[in-house]
């Protein structure tokens, strides 16, 4: 305990502590947060947690050990345990900004606004150069209705990341809420110039154009929004570092799906194969791999995957539909027709199957029946 801390303590408390063990008594090692009620868990996650728990127990004064355990819990959706570990890490090493950052993120996601704000302010004080902390503080303050302070936080973000869409969109929202629609439009246009796939900016700009009495421009933006399926994730290295700890099959699945949505097919494919090496019957991985192979015109591989999907879950129209598209792409029209009919039997409202079947009949109707 530092001399300064001693001065802050009242004399009575100081005497009490001396009686209890004195200032030289070692501080008790923090209890390592672990599951009270073990649950079935992904074995890879369980192993990672066991190792990190052992490391924390072996190094009770190590903020890094507790912080690492916190990241593993956090990445695998054991949020409360993660927060408890981060809190211990922050106590052991108050100068490191990572731990309050993660605590702020968790608090913000759970609606604990006061705590989240305090944590993010602590981070910006410890590391004023970490831009995402300013953006998260801005987002939080905006949710709390503190527009002026939010605006200042986004300005700090933009000073560190000039032209960063995160900050531009934040300021655009503030301008919208303040009735400064022209300014909002200008900020959101800049965000879209920087990041054309930014769905949020496209939508907000559409609403802003609508409110500015520019319905045609608005409709164009709404169409762009509806057609954009990739999602823009602003860079946040600390969060990405935490996410790396999601090493179980289900954590990998989330990552792979996110990569697929972002159009990063090769990276997604590698993860799906990794998942299937651990869980060979994982339907979603099979289907999404089939999708990747189909898009990349690797039809033999795609067909094998879609057939596997149908085998795993014959009642799912999705597998039959993917198989049908693959068969169409390889001119196996009769087999494709069978699969499309099966899709419509399982899901009479399946617009895609209906459209493909109509097209098939229009283009190849005469040939159907003789096709193997």
């Amino acid at each position, binding site marked *: 305990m530092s001399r300064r801390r001693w001065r802050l303590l009242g004399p009575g408390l100081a005497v009490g502590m001396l009686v209890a063990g004195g200032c030289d008594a070692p501080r008790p090692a923090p209890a390592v947060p672990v*599951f009270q*009620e073990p*649950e*079935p*868990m*992904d*074995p890879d*996650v*369980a192993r990672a947690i066991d190792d990190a728990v052992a490391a924390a127990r072996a190094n009770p004064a190590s903020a890094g050990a507790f912080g690492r355990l916190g990241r593993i819990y956090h*990445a*695998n*959706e*054991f*949020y*409360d*345990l993660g927060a408890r570990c981060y809190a211990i890490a922050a106590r052991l090493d108050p100068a490191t900004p990572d731990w309050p950052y993660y605590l702020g993120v968790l608090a*913000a*996601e*759970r*609606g*604990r*606004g006061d705590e989240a704000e305090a944590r993010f302010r602590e981070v910006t004080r410890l590391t004023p150069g970490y831009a995402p902390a300013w953006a998260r503080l801005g987002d939080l303050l*905006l*949710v*709390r*209705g503190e527009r002026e302070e939010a605006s200042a936080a986004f300005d700090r973000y933009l000073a560190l990341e000039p032209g960063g869409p995160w900050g531009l969109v934040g300021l655009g*929202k503030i301008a*919208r*809420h303040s009735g400064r629609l022209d300014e909002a439009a200008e900020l959101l246009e800049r965000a879209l110039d920087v990041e054309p796939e930014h*769905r*949020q900016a*496209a*939508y*907000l700009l*559409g*609403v802003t154009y*609508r*409110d500015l009495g520019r319905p045609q421009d*608005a*409709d164009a933006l*709404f169409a762009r*929004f*509806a057609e954009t399926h990739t999602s823009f994730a602003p860079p946040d290295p600390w969060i990405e570092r935490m996410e790396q700890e*999601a090493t*179980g*099959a*289900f*954590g990998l699945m*989330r990552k792979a799906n996110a990569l697929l949505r972002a159009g990063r097919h090769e990276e997604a494919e590698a993860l799906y194969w990794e998942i299937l090496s651990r869980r060979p019957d994982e*339907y*979603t991985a099979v289907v999404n791999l089939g999708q990747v192979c189909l898009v990349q015109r690797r039809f033999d591989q795609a067909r094998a995957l879609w057939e596997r999907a149908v085998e795993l*879950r014959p*009642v*799912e*129209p*999705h597998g039959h539909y993917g198989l049908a598209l693959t068969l169409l792409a390889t001119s196996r029209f009769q087999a494709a027709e069978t699969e499309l009919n099966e899709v419509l039997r399982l*899901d009479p*409202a399946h617009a895609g199957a209906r459209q493909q079947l109509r097209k098939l009949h229009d283009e190849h109707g005469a040939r159907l029946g003789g096709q193997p």
Partner: protein
Amino acid sequence: MVRRTAWLVVLLAGACGDPATEAPAGKAGAPLFVEVAAEAGLNFVHENGATGKYYLPELMQGGCAFLDYDGDSFLDVYMVQSGRLPPDPGTDPGGNRLYRNDGDGTFTDVTADAGVGGRGYGSGAACADYDRDGDVDLYVTHLGPDVLFRNDGDGTFTDVTADAAVGDHGYSSSAAFLDYDADGDLDLYVCNYVDWFPEIERDCFSRGGLRGYCSPAVYDRPQLDTLFRNDGNGRFTDVSVEAGIRASAGTGLGVAVADFDDDGDTDIYVANDQMPNNLWINNGDGTFTDEALRRGCAVDEDGRAKAGMGVATEDPDDDGDWDLFVVNLSGETNTFYRNAGEGHFSDATHELRLGMVSLPFTGFGTSLFDFDCDGHLDIFIANGKVRLGDSMREGDYGEPNQLLRGSASGVFEDVSAQAGPALALGEVTRGAAFGDYDNDGDVDILLSNNDGPARLLRNEACVGRHWLTVDLACPDRDRHCIGALVTLEAGGRTRRRQVQPAYGYAASNDPRVHFGLGEIASVDVLTVTWPGGRTERHIDVPADRILRLTEPGGTEAGP
């Protein structure tokens, strides 16, 4: 001019006492709501049939209704049971319960006599006088065929589903009666959720490998909603295709109806779970177009399609149009869509301080209503998880419900902690019905807990404040004049409400219109716009009464 007739008189004991200047809400230190289900005789316990297979419907069910089935002016209670899963509507005994309000704060189970035990795996209820015979009928939604009970007017009901042709076979959640074609009878909109059957169930896990319920997106089988047109002869026709509402499938859970674009006909808003919400704009020719995206109420301001559960529509900012409040999943904020006029919405969630308070919870039932009679609409949210929380204990899905107090500034304040232990029970609440079951001038709350007991929250918060409840009757239309508007001018403000018992989640609510008046003991002008468009005005209407008005002629009765 107000004419008096002897249509019906309900004289209320002065439950709200004398007007008091700046009276606080409720008695000092007393809870704002008191849970009285057991002492009132509501012994219903919902069963979800969970067997450890994590079937999607298990965690979604729990519907309830306030309705006055026997016409005695006291709200009765209907609780929807689920039961065995997968269900067998052919053999499963019905577990729904109808409780008659005895008028003294207690209820009697009259299910057997009334014949409304039902069948199958129930979801929710919608109540209205669809056959225009002066009593309230009952539509019960299910996983599987829905059921329409016709009120025979003698305390019994008859299952007329087949004759009426309204047995929607989807996985129905919420439903609403509305007169979309303005022909004077009530049509029926049924929200369908997911095309679910046991064979499509999947194994879903958290990142850490904990088994849990799947999100609806996993199935990728959103189900088409259904619109039934009332043919006026006891039968309905499924007009979903020709009306255009089959243009998109959604995971519909909540429905709210109103004239959102203020063009004189009734539109339909559907809250979808993890999909963009629908705003079906009535084209006035029997067709609808989904304009939610361009009108700004499909997604939140970040462009995210949230997990829409329940939805309520009212006009809390008194600007003469219908705003929307949609409750969502934990980790997402609930969303308040402010109508800026003619059905153009903006996300005003954060401005109204509704964001941060909602992040920890998953909302289902909800209402915008004036719980403390101070003249400003408040919000109740019935919460309960759909995924495991921090405790990671199996079955631990309970959450406290929330009460948010509205204010003149428009901002809402979380007053759940002051509401008393009734709100902190931490159960898995789904449906919530709102109504004044004891006719004392405040709005009480009926809760349906998933796999748990029903709760009845008696309101104690209006002490010392004035109120006015308007009960409309349309002998030539439906009993409660669904679609009618009531506009109240008092204290320099103009407020508008509509008659529409369908809102929230899987619930049917008190069809009477309630206004909290605060210190105002008399209403300057009360205007009723009947469903046909005719209006009538009433001047200097005294407060603290249930005012009954009958079309035509604007018949007033009362003390």
